């Protein structure tokens, strides 16, 4: 029997709903969702093609009759083609980076925002947040769901927020120390970076007032958790979410930290083989698929997250009955998360196409030499474009650098390499070398 890392209450009784009761609630809400989604032309067509109707959804298992939704679908319905309510009912719009420089938008009604903050409050409370705490939020505030999502969840609990947002790490350390924040909210890699900057300024672990951390927005490991906990002298909790489903709050850890409880009264989760789309048995890694059960503005049916993880339905000693998902162990597409930002190799290609004098032959190498991700893009020169001038090469280099930043929003080091030096395999070229998965680099 695992031991809890701290004592914490349960925020919402719905978290402990007995499984049969929750399945009945899910079935009812699933039918409602299909009914709401039918108001959206995209879903109406997709449901028609699948031969599925709201009336045919009688149990949770009937979700299998429904069509899948992908990121491409969201992109094609740019900007807000998947709205299931009149525009006037919207309360907020968020977005996530897309593959072509355009974000994909997600929308919320007033009630969606209340649902969302309640879900964030659930995992925050499960991870020890109390109303008397002060929380330092170093997530970006903006279209990204991390900043505002956590912000309103913290307020929902009744705790105080320091909306520090990203950047200027020494200043963040100063704010944490001077304002006495007990809780840190950011990406795990940024937490480690804050720890390094604090150490460089002479702080020892435990010197800062921090006691708890709630981290998400990118995949991380148990080793990284241990490193963050040691460096900051805190307890660190993992949470998961994606804007297409709602944002952070889709699932989060309890004090036993044996997986993240999915908020099943609001999301139906499936785990499928990414190739066959058949369900994989519990405990096996597959692609997570979510169907929203209560979202009003933008319900989503069987959204393919591309995130690979496993589900665990064994009872948890914390009393929460929501199925636990493992850490995200990979992606079923080629998306990279670099310093918390989603990057697709196709974006690099798009950037290179804007620059004359480069071939679309490139390799992205990602590593984590310290606490922050570093990305290097190797780009092959075209021999015909090589002149005998440093200035021309430097300009080419700088243009590529600028275009990649403009398209992805991330700074990457650019290396010009000789033609035909990047590995070409039969068929699909190797575009990504991610050293973060293989070791400490």
């Amino acid at each position, binding site marked *: 029997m695992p031991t809890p890392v701290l004592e914490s209450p349960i925020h919402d009784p719905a978290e402990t709903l007995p499984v049969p009761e929750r399945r009945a609630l899910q079935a009812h809400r699933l039918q409602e969702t299909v009914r709401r989604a039918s108001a959206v032309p995209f879903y109406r067509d997709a449901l028609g093609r699948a031969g599925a109707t709201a009336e045919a959804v009688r149990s949770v298992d009937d979700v299998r009759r429904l069509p899948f939704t992908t990121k491409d679908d969201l992109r094609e319905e740019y900007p807000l083609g998947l709205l299931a309510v009149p525009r006037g009912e919207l309360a907020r719009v968020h977005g996530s980076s897309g593959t072509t420089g355009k974000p994909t938008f997600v929308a919320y009604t007033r009630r969606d925002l209340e649902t969302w903050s309640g879900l964030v409050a659930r995992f925050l409370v499960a991870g020890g947040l109390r109303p008397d705490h002060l929380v330092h939020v170093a997530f970006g505030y903006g279209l990204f769901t991390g900043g505002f999502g956590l912000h309103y969840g913290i307020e929902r609990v009744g705790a105080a927020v320091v909306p520090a947002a990203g950047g200027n790490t020494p200043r963040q350390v100063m704010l944490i120390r001077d304002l006495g924040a007990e809780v840190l909210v950011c990406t795990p890699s940024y937490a480690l970076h804050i720890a390094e900057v604090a150490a460089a300024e002479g702080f020892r672990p435990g010197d800062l007032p921090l006691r708890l951390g709630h981290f998400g927005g990118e995949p991380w490991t148990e080793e990284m958790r241990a490193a963050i906990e040691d460096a900051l002298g805190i307890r660190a909790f993992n949470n998961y979410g994606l804007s297409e489903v709602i944002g952070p709050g889709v699932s989060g850890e309890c004090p036993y930290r044996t997986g993240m409880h999915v908020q099943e009264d609001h999301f139906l989760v499936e785990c499928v083989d990414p190739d066959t789309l058949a369900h994989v048995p519990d405990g096996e890694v597959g692609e997570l698929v979510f169907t929203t059960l209560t979202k009003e503005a933008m319900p989503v049916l069987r959204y393919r997250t591309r995130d690979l993880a496993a589900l665990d339905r064994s009872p948890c000693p914390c009393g929460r009955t929501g199925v636990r998902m493992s850490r995200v162990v990979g992606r079923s597409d080629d998306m990279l998360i670099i310093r918390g930002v989603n990057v697709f190799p196709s974006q690099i290609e798009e950037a290179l196409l804007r620059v004359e004098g480069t071939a679309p032959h490139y390799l992205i190498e990602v590593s984590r030499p310290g606490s922050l991700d570093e990305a290097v893009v190797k780009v092959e*020169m075209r*021999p015909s474009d*090589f*002149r*005998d*001038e*440093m200035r021309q*090469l*430097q300009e080419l*280099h700088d243009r590529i650098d600028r275009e990649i930043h403009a398209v992805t929003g991330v700074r990457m080091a*650019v*290396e*010009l*390499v*000789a*033609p*035909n*030096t990047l590995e070409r395999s039969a068929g699909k070229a190797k575009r990504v070398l991610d050293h973060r998965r293989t070791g400490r680099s």
Partner: protein
Amino acid sequence: MKIRQLSLFLENRPGQLRFPCKVLGDAGIDIVTMSLADTAQFGILRLVVKEWERAKAVLDAAGVVVNVTEVLAVDVPDRPGGLAAVLDAFEQAGVGVEYMYASAARERGLHATLLFRLEDPDRAAKLLEAAGVKLVGPDELFARS
């Protein structure tokens, strides 16, 4: 009077300089003189060889990125102020220098021989000769090496 120079693109990593030199060596091509320009990201190796066409062909075949440019070889009196006087002539003639380097092939004791990459080599050659600057042609330069 112009000299053909080969410019090679080099990535900034170990072995990048050795490889083209070995390709030329294996082909029996002698390097008359060379210069290396580099930044943190990449470098350009500039070579003057006797058989530039054959050199380019073997380098191309080996996958090296090669560009052919024209440079002028200039004899500069080997005494204090010698180079300044020549550059003064450049300036009088309105000839802009993109880069220059010293040639290993020269007549020791008499003068230094410098290679200049100029904006418009043909026009520059005429103006410099008119200004009394001594240009060295390929045959003469190669005879010294």
